[in-house]
């Protein structure tokens, strides 16, 4: 309520009213579906950021073993562990998925929607229900039985989205993030149902995005480890073979580079014998 005195917020509210009006009157959505549409549009605008996220997830996956080593090394010093991990990111030019700016870009939308739902006088007789179980999106969530259903969906979707979004590999932190919705649900219960609807929509979008991302990341395997393993044995053989040339004349595997000089020698020897 104190926030309302800030002039930007009332401006945000007017913009949100216009957008909702446009979706309702021009695009023909009900008020509830207009909120869903606004959410979808906002998330669509953030898609370029998601593409960046896919790349960062791929590079994170490739460096996972080294990062686990760092975590083991500084097991007892969380502060130091965080610092070292961040240094590792910078050195290897890894881009962690999470960042504050995209989140902050969603904040004004959320605040605008909150005040719009609180203050907007919807035209009398307008349909404020959603999928037959929410009767009034501008009313408190717990004031209607459908609100409780929506809250359950919120908790589940929020947990699922943190599963995809949380950048930390730290287990205790992850569990903490997973349990957070159970606390938030008490704060959110006082909000208008339309706001929870926004929340559920944006969470479901995150989950869907996460599923697609995960599939894309899995399709691109990390080939570096395999290549190294196939390359290293011949190199070892070659070096040991060079050292033990007089003792063992012909080792069974025939690698390319180390074998060539031998062949030349043999040829020379053969010619001299003949």
């Amino acid at each position: 309520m104190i926030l309302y005195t800030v002039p930007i917020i009332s401006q945000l509210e007017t913009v949100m009213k216009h957008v909702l009006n446009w979706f309702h009157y021009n695009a023909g959505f009900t008020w509830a579906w207009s909120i869903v549409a606004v959410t979808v549009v906002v998330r669509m605008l953030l898609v370029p950021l998601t593409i960046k996220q896919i790349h960062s997830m791929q590079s994170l996956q490739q460096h996972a073993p080294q990062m686990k080593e760092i975590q083991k090394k500084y097991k007892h010093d969380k502060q130091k562990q965080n610092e070292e991990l961040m240094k590792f990111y910078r050195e290897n030019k890894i881009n962690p998925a999470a960042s504050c700016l995209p989140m902050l870009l969603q904040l004004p939308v959320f605040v605008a929607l909150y005040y719009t739902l609180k203050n907007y006088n919807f035209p009398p007789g307008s349909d404020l229900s959603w999928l037959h179980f929410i009767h009034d999106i501008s009313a408190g969530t717990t004031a209607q039985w459908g609100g409780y259903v929506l809250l359950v969906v919120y908790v589940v979707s929020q947990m699922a989205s943190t599963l995809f979004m949380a950048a930390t590999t730290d287990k205790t932190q992850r569990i903490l993030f997973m349990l957070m919705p159970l606390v938030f649900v008490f704060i959110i219960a006082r909000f208008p149902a339309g706001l929870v609807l926004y929340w559920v929509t944006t969470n479901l979008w995150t989950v869907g995005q996460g599923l697609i991302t995960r599939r894309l990341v899995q399709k691109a395997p990390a080939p570096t480890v395999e290549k190294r393993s196939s390359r290293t044995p011949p190199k070892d053989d070659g070096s040991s073979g060079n050292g033990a040339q007089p003792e063992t004349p012909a080792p069974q595997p025939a690698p390319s580079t180390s074998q060539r000089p031998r062949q030349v020698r043999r040829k020379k020897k053969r010619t001299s014998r003949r």
Partner: protein
Amino acid sequence: MSVVLRLPSKLGIGLVWAYRLTLGALFPTTCKYHPSCSEYAVQALRKHGLVRGSLLAGWRLIRCNPWSHGGFDPVR
């Protein structure tokens, strides 16, 4: 006197905490920097006062985008 001079930055720190406890708590994303953006803001406000501290915090928030690399970035 020094207490009076520090009041503006205390106000800023209070605002950061208000954000942390309300809206910040609702968005469970982690920052790619260490210290995190809000922690950085508190430290910057403490060290450089309201004006410079806010500018530093704002600049950090802009840097905390998907194209930056993140990492260890303390207040200087």
